[in-house]
Structure formats: C-alpha cells, structure tokens
C-alpha cells in the first residue's frame, strides 16, 4: 500500500507548467501587440490570470457554457473588426483569441502542446510581413524561447531547469540550421501567389505624394527613412546630375499642384535623343505602397519585366505587381538628353494653364519681362536672375502661406524649400506663356563606401521645374540652384543649411557613427538582396550557375525536389554522427574501470587469478600483492588511484591521469 503523492506537489507541478505556457504564449504574441486591437491582448492577459488563479487557489474551472459564450463573442468581435478572417492581421487576431480561450481551458500536456504550436504559427504570421534583419533576429530569439517551451512542456515527468532546456533548444536549433539553409536555397519557388492575398492596411506610407502643396513636404524632408538604393554599374554621375525622376505635377488650382491623368506611355520616349555615355545602374526600391519607380533623368524605356515607362517619363510598375513588396530593377539613363516631345496646341494650353484669379503680383512681375519680346531661354534666365537678385532664403521650416501662396512666397516671406521654388518658378514660366510643370523626385543621395552604392533617403526628396521649348523639348530648370547652389551641388541637405536643423539625428553627424551606420546599411542591403529578395528569379540565376540552365520547368522542379531530399538525408547523417559522437564518450568512471581492467589483465598474465565477482578492488590488490611481492608498492598505488578516480565524490581528472600513467608503465614480472 502506498499513499498517493502529496496534493501540493502535483499542484505546484501544474502551476509551473502553466507559468511556462503563459511565458511562451506572451512571447509569441508580443510581435503582434502593436497591430492588434487593444482588447485582444487584454483578453489574453485576463485569460492567463484567470487560469493561474484557478490553479493556485484551487478555484473551479470556468464552466463549458461560459467558455463557449466567450469564444462566440470574441470571434464575433474579430469578425466585425476586420470584416474577414482571411489575411494576416485578422488571422493573427483570431489566433491570439483562440490562444486566450485555449489557455483558459488548458488542463495539461496535450492542451499545452497545442498552445506551443499556435505560438509557432503566430511567429510565422509575423514573418509573412517582416523584413529587416533586426526583426528576424528578434523573431529567432522568440523561436528559441518557444522551442524551450516545447521541450519543457512535452515532458511528462517533472520539468527540467531553464538552463539545460535552453541549451538543448539552442543545440537542436543550431543542428537544424544547415538543413534550413539547404531547403531555403533549393526548395522550388513559385513566381506568383497561390490565392489572392488581401491587402494589408499599410497605414501612413511615407514617400512622395500625389500632390505638391508647398508646406506639407516639411515633415517628409526631415525623415531619414530610405527611399531606395542605387548601385552604378558604370561611373556614377556627379551629384548635380543625380536627379531621380518621380511623379510630375501638371494641374494647379492656385494652391495645390496635382498629377494629370495618364497621358502618354512609352511613345514619348521615342522622340527623345539620348546623348553622351549611358549610365547603367540598379535600383533597390524600398516598400512604398505605390507603383512608382525612380530613375535618373532621363531613363530609356526599361527592359525589365514588370516595369514600364508611364506618363511624363516616370517609371512605374505594372498594376498587377503586388504593392508593398520591394522592387529591384536595372535601368539605363542618359544624363544629357533632348526630350523632344512634340506638344499639340491643346497640350501646350494644358501646360500653361493657371487659375484666372491666382498670383496677380507674379503675373505683373512676369509681364514686365515680356516687353522686349525675349526668347524662351532669355525668359528662363530672367526668372533665375530675379530669384538670385532677391533676398531669398532656403529653409526647411518656412512660415505658413495664405490665400495667394505663390505671391506671398515670392514677395513677402521669401523663405521656403524646393517645392516653394519649383511651384513659384513654374507659375512664373506659365505666366510668361511657356509650357511648364513640376517634377518631383529625389536629388543627390549619399554614397555608402562599404557597400559601393548610393542611399537615397526620403530627406533627399526634391522638386524642380521642367520648361518646354519648341526646339529643345523639356528642359530641366532647378530654381533651388539659384538660391541654394550647395543643395544641388552636394546632393544633400547637409551643409546647405548653415546652423539650421538638418535631417537626421545629431548622432548621424558624428563621423564614426556614420561609418558604422554605413556598414549596417550595407549588411541590411545584402540581407534584402539575398534573403528577403530570394525568389524564383534569384533561385533560377543561382541554379543556372550549377548547370540547370536550359532545363524545362518540370525537370528543374523534379531535380530540385530530389536535391531537397538529398539535403534532408545529408542533414540526417550529420545529426546522427553528431549524436553518436556525443554518446560515444564514456564517463570518467568507466575510463577508470577500463584502466583497472587492463591492470587486472596484466596481473592475470602472471597467474594472479581474475577478480571474483564478490571481491572488492582492495581485497584483490591484497591478494595480488601477496602473489607478486616485488610489485606490491606499485599495485598499492594503482589501486589507490583507481579508488580515487572511480569512487571519490568530485573525482578530478588528475586521479584518472595518474591511474592511466601508472597502468601504462605497469609491467609486473612473474614472481
């Protein structure tokens, strides 16, 4: 008869399992907290607290009807909040709610393993949209934590300590890394999605806007976020030529510039004369949520799939391309060109249109320049001269403008940044009867000497004017170069503004910090290129290197799958060998026994009868000493070392080493 174990022991075992489960569940949901509606984490926390109180205070479990009701209400609210259960965000919210309810009713081993599995799946949901190397490292940490939980909670016996479990989890994860890499490279990638992916609500995407409204670009200009990176395959052009062309603003309502409708695509490019040496480069675009792509003025129509030349020479991705993904493309541009686009009279009217009431003082000013019937070139020159001659200031924090923003800027405040100047200059040109428009984009960029590419940040956003001349086509005029020539020549805000707030942090101006940031950015770029960007194209390129080129698709795939199987087998072999190696090493205790066996074998050779089953080493040694008196001292020493190495608590390796040495030199002679 045996009493059952004390009730408190099982209770505390249950509580410690629940603590572990709670830790894993909280860890796995952590990355989702910012995107979840507040009530979801609250529900989770309440469920955890409730269950723990049930366990520690021996309260009754919540009844089934209550749990069911709770589940229905929670699912209902998720459904109402997201209007769907498809998609990453709604799905994640649903999973977290499920976790909370599962935790509330969890009773042991099986329920806890289910929770671990949902934890892995939640981490996976984060990874569907995550990109950065830091996020990946953070998630790898959480995967490690979840794996510790898996190893702990899959135990049926009492839980182990944190340390051995954490070590084991780390070891098994490290052992699975080679297979992960092999499968990552080799598993066949599909070019398109399997089913329609509902768009994620990427709120507040920064970047250039659809409109230009002098005053709202201030916030953008101060953002240090990266817009894209560009790597030149030929000699990079100087900063003053690095105008990265973006959307063009044609329509003006007196206050706001906006884009015209889709006008012409690639046909306009046919009329362009490309002069001088081509500049070839690669652009790695960050996620923007728009289908705009950027290229140096003036790009040739791109040959890359999925990219086209849209209105006003702006590169765009095809509508089908999923937004919110990074884009990597190659383009050829010519920094000297003649964009000889013929404009119809209707188009000329479009590009000279000004709202009748707007900017009376500017019109007055321009009217004065027209008296001697100047050529268009002279008019542009007069405009620039006028800007140079007046006390204009380049600033990132201009004063607010009123009813007639252009007039107020040109004659009263005279403080502004690129959009103010581009807007005012375009209005002046239109007032003079010249077709003109605003081009927005980026100017300059910063060289990352480590990675060998340029980083173009949101703070490099710029706007300039294009004027159409009958014989020269569209000519770029940057009024900012008249006011703040440094801005254009350096290709950066930095240095252009004396003593003013410069984009970027104070840290960003310390030289070694800047260098470290460059190294980090280069690493992030490689990460983006080789890990995040590893898709069907890169896989194809890589496999072509190892002799896959020219194979039909079915054969490529079957070969790839075969390689995956091979990698799995190789991984298996590797793990087996590692495990066998770990298991092979005997403990010191057994080594001592083996040494002693060798010693006994040598004695047996000189007719010392083998040790009987019931004979201890000391009794055996006494018998051996009597039989071989000449070796008595040595036998005594060996037995003493053996007893120390094998039976002493905390036996050190010295005892074993001594035993080994003594046995090795033990050569007893027959008495």
């Amino acid at each position: 008869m045996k009493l059952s174990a004390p009730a408190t022991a099982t209770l505390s075992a249950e509580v410690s399992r629940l603590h572990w489960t709670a830790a894993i569940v909280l860890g796995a949901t952590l990355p989702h907290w910012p995107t979840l509606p507040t009530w979801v984490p609250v529900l989770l926390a309440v469920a955890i607290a409730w269950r723990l109180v049930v366990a520690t205070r021996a309260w009754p479990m919540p009844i089934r009807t209550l749990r069911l009701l709770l589940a229905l209400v929670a699912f209902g609210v998720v459904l109402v909040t997201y209007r769907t259960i498809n998609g990453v965000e709604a799905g994640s919210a649903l999973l977290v709610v499920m976790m909370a309810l599962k935790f509330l009713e969890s009773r042991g081993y099986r329920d806890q393993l289910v929770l671990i599995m949902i934890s892995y799946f939640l981490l996976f949901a984060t990874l569907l949209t995550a990109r950065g190397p830091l996020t990946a490292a953070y998630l790898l940490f959480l995967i490690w934590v979840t794996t510790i939980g898996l190893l702990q909670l899959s135990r049926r016996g009492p839980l182990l300590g944190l340390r051995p479990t954490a070590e084991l989890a780390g070891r098994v994860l490290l052992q699975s890394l080679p297979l992960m890499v092999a499968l990552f490279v080799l598993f066949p990638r599909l070019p398109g999605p399997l089913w329609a992916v509902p768009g994620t609500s990427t709120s507040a995407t920064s970047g250039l806007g659809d409109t230009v409204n002098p005053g709202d670009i201030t916030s953008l200009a101060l953002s240090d976020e990266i817009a894209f990176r560009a790597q030149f395959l030929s000699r990079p052009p100087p900063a003053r030529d690095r105008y990265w062309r973006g959307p063009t603003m044609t329509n003006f309502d007196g206050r706001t510039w906006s884009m015209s409708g889709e006008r012409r695509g690639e046909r306009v490019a046919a009329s362009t004369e490309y002069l001088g040496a081509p500049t070839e480069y690669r652009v790695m675009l960050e996620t923007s949520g728009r289908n705009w792509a950027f290229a140096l003025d003036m790009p040739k129509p791109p040959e890359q799939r999925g990219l086209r030349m849209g209105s006003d020479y702006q590169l765009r991705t095809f509508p089908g391309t999923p937004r919110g993904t990074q884009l990597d493309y190659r383009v050829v541009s010519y920094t000297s060109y003649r964009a000889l686009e013929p404009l119809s009279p209707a188009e000329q009217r479009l590009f000279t249109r000004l709202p009748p009431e707007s900017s009376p003082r500017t019109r007055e000013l321009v009217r004065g320049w027209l008296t001697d019937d100047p050529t268009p070139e002279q008019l542009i020159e007069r405009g620039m001269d006028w800007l140079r001659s007046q006390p204009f200031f380049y600033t990132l924090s201009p004063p607010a403008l009123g009813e007639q923003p252009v007039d107020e800027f040109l004659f009263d405040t005279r403080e502004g940044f690129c959009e103010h100047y581009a807007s005012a200059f375009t209005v002046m040109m239109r007032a003079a009867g010249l077709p003109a428009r605003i081009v927005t984009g980026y100017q300059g960029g910063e060289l990352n000497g480590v990675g060998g590419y340029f980083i173009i940040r949101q703070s490099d956003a710029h706007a300039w004017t294009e004027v159409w001349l009958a014989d020269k086509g569209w000519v770029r005029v940057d009024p900012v170069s008249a006011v703040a020539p440094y801005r254009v020549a350096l290709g950066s805000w930095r240095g252009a503004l004396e003593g003013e707030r410069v984009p970027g942090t104070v840290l960003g101006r310390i030289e070694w910090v800047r260098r470290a940031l460059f190294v980090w950015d280069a690493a992030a770029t490689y990460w983006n290129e080789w890990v995040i960007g590893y898709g069907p194209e890169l896989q194809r390129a890589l496999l072509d290197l190892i002799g896959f080129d020219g194979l039909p698709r079915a054969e490529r795939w079957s070969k790839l799958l075969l390689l995956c199987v091979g990698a799995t087998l190789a991984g298996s072999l590797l793990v087996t060998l590692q495990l066998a190696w770990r298991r092979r090493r005997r403990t010191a205790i057994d080594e001592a026994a083996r040494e002693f066996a060798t010693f006994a074998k040598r004695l047996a050779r000189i007719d010392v009868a083998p040790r009987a089953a019931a004979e201890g080493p000391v009794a055996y040694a006494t018998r051996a000493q009597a039989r071989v008196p000449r070796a008595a001292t040595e036998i005594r020493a060996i037995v003493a070392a053996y007893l120390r190495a094998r039976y002493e608590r905390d036996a050190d390796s010295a005892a074993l080493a001594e035993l080994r040495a003594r046995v090795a030199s033990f050569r007893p002679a027959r008495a």
Partner: protein
Amino acid sequence: MPLAAARRLEGWAASWARRRQGADPHAVVLKRSRVYILPTRFGVVFAAMMFAMLLGSLNYGASLGFMLTFLLAGLALVLMHHCHGNLLGAEIKLIGAHPVFAGQRAEFRIAVRNDTAAPRYEIELSHDRHSAGPVDVAPGAEVSLRIAVPTERRGWVALERFAVVTRHPGGLFRAWTWVHMNARCLVYPQPARPGRPLPESAGLGLGGRPDRGDSDFAGLRAAAPGDPPQRIAWKAFARNDTLLLKQFAGGDREPCELDWDALPELAAEARLAQLTRWCLDAAAEARSFALKIPGAVLPLGAGPQHLAACLEALALCETGER
C-alpha cells in the same frame, strides 16, 4: 483509427519484432536495429502545421516565412534523431520480481542504465497500456522502474514483452523497442480467509510446552493479506509507508503439521488456499511447521526461508512447473 484496430496492428508488429529480434537475455544494450520510431499524433499535427506554413510562404512569397518553415522542418528532423538516440545504447536490465499472492500485482523491477556521457531523458517502460516512468537517467546512472502485472492464479506469471519508450525531446516522435526477456514472477496461492485454527500437532508426537504468548518480539516482516491486523506494526507504517508484521519468537510454541490429506472436504485449490493460510499463520505465530502436499514434503522448519520454500511448493503444486 479505432482502438481495437490499433491494438491489433501493434500486436502484429510486436510479434513480427519478436520473430526478428529473438529472445533477449536479462540485460540488453539497445542497438540501432531494434529501435523503432514513428511520429506521435502531435507530430502529425505539427507536420500539418508546417505544410500550412509552406503554403502560406509560397503564397505570400515570404522569404522569412520559408525560413521558419524550413527551420521547423529541420528541427523536426533533428528531434527525430535525438528521440531515437535517446534510447540507443541504453542498457535494460531485469532485476527480478518478488513473489506475490494470487490477486496481487506482480511487480517486475527493471533497470535502465546509461553508460554514456549524455543524459537520457523521459524513458518509460510500457506494458499492456500501462507505463512506468518517465524517468531521467544521468550519465553513469541506473534507475529502476516497476512494471505491475495483475495475477489471477498461482504458479509463474511471465512478463513476455514490454516496451522501452521515449518521446523526448519535443513529443513529436515516439521511439520504442520491444524487449522479450524471460522474466517471471512466482505467484503463491491466494490464502484462504483466516479463521480455521491451525491443526494440532498430534501426529508429530512432540511434547507440549507452556505458551508464553506473543510477548517476545523477534522482528518485522512484510505483511501479507490475511495477517492478523492486531499484529501489524502501525508505528512502522507511519514511518515508512510499508505494512510490516510484528513477529515474535515462538520457538517455544507447539510445532504443527500442515497436511493436504487433513482437508478432505475441500477441493484441490481450496485445500492449497487453506494450507497457504496455515503456513502464514504458523509463521506469524513463529511456530515451526511441516508441509505435506502431493509431490512435495517439507520437513519441520521455521523462519522466512522455510516459509518461502513452503509457499513456492504450494504455488507450483501439480502445475508441472518448477
């Protein structure tokens, strides 16, 4: 899969393993060729989850999603090898089983020994849907476990087969091996209800001696069913949870003869039951006794060894076993 079908499948697999492995000695080191492994139900669900992850990654073209999917696939593979390796090289030794009375559970003691440098975790022994453990076995350590087998009749009860099982680490896989050691446990007859007094020793012709009662305490022995409750050592039970019977020196008491032929009114098994009861009573009273049953005559004796010999004779009486 219905439970009955699963059991039948397992029985079939086990008998196949018996044919290919042969009988085992009382100590075996588990070799690669006999450690089997299959995913658990949790492992199958885990695989389904990985497949869902793979589909999701393909759909979203998410590189990091692929990474986690393949990391978990690698993890499952690694855990499979760890699970297999957790049994590999372990030594399973039969320690033995103490005799029990029919109706009690025979407890086979089996030791798991780990002679490698790495610890072994969560090793279970499983027999007929019952399992013992799990236990962790440190490097160089040996842990013993008990498999309980219900008994119904006297004679030998055999533990024909048991499984050594582990699900460590992760519970995704179940690695096991079947062990067929010739393990058996002696089952004494179930003693009859107490009440019938010990027979007089007339036939032995020994002179009577004054009865000094139960006064001379001689020691403790393990209690058996039917022992008089007033002689249970309750204080000792409070100390160590084992029922012990107080024994008293009784060499001075009348010896008795326990004879098969003295109980003609009882059927054969009932006679054995009554004789068993008498053996226990006599031993409890510390009287020496002789036993005479078909096929065995045990001369007058006393003490635990004599009792064990008598009970064994009773257990194996006319069973054709030894």
